[in-house]
């Protein structure tokens, strides 16, 4: 499935800003799983992950009128709002950073898979995971530190023991490679 049209994102956010329940429902269906997963990975427990979902939707509503389609997709904007809240939460709690491997295992209490309409989403997730497989270990590590850890490029460089320019290049290349790989997998699967 191609990315949604910016106009539909804009219309959705306009509806959400004026307290439209259907828009809130649509946003939840589109983004809650990734925000919840982000909470599990970054904050390490279900209660905190659920709080993150709730806080993200409230913040997205409060800032709905600031969403600008010319600056990127709604999906990215919402995810970065959630990530920012998660980092704030981590800083407040002064928790140790958790690695993706340590917390990424399936959780026993995960509900059963949903109805048929989640198949397309699952397919997209599978493509994304295959795209992740195209990254080198160094690229992935740099991206995880920047994304989950909220580290600057300088901090990534220090943690990885690499020059600053290399850290910047790894993060940028990883993101661009992910996007390209997703397109390639999409073309192959179509």
């Amino acid at each position, binding site marked *: 499935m191609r990315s949604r049209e910016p106009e539909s994102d804009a219309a959705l956010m306009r509806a959400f800003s004026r307290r439209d329940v259907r828009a809130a429902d649509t946003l939840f269906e589109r983004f809650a799983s990734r925000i919840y997963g982000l909470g599990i990975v970054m904050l390490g427990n279900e209660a905190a992950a659920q709080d993150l979902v709730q806080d993200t*939707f409230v913040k997205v509503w409060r800032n709905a009128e600031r969403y600008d389609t010319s600056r990127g*997709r709604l999906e990215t904007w919402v995810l970065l709002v959630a990530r920012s809240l998660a980092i704030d939460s981590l800083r407040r709690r002064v928790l140790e950073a958790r690695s993706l491997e340590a917390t990424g295992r399936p959780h026993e209490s995960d509900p059963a898979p949903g109805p048929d309409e989640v198949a397309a989403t699952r397919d997209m997730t599978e493509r994304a995971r295959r795209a992740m497989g195209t990254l080198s270990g160094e690229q992935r590590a740099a991206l995880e530190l920047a994304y989950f850890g909220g580290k600057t490029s300088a901090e990534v460089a220090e943690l990885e023991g690499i020059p600053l320019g290399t850290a910047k290049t790894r993060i940028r290349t990883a993101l661009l490679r992910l996007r390209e790989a997703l397109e390639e997998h999409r073309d192959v699967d179509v």
Partner: protein
Amino acid sequence: VTSTCDEARALLPEHLLGTLEEEADEGVRRHLRGCASCRAEMAALGEGIATFARAAHDRPPPDGLKDRVMTVLGEEWREQPVAIPAAGGRARLAWAAAAAAAVLVAALAWGGVQTRRASVAAADAGSYRNLLEVLGGEEFRLGELSSEGPDRLEGSVVLYDSHVDQSWVVVLVRAPGMFGTATATLEADDGRSIEMRPLEFGETGSAATWWVGPNDLRAYDHVEIARPDGTLLAATAIVPA
């Protein structure tokens, strides 16, 4: 200061992830405003983040979380007043102009109801254009309400659409012999709707309602007037003045 594309692109990931110092971040923002190719790269990086998110942290939320979020949003919506631009500067001017225009346009529309509705609306197209220049909005649109029979009703709709400031709609109706209330709803073809304050008919059979909000009203193209039980009294398309 970020002046070249190479310099900006080196900073785009951190700009996107929010880890740049304020000064550097402002430099990137300034560069992006004038550089389409760097904006395209930022969009590509954003898609990379979305892909990463799908792969790394897509987990079905537990049962009950949706209800919880919707409940909290409902509480938030009840507690927060409908946003009104802060008094002062451009916002205050826009409100004053919108209020003045509302009165003027409503007067024009009401005149139309009483006499030559369509011809007045057409003749005043120039007035609407002048108002539009003053207000800086997108367009004025008009509708004419008319129904025959026991619930005879006539009236006008004036819509001012602004994508940057407040948009508004005024509905004026007259229905001799009608008492009580009626609903006035602004509707879009995609099913969205905005319900205005109820029309309250007085002894003269006249009633008015309006709506003001921060919405882009492009998609809204008709208005329906109905009894509280849902019985349709009149409907009109709203078309550019």
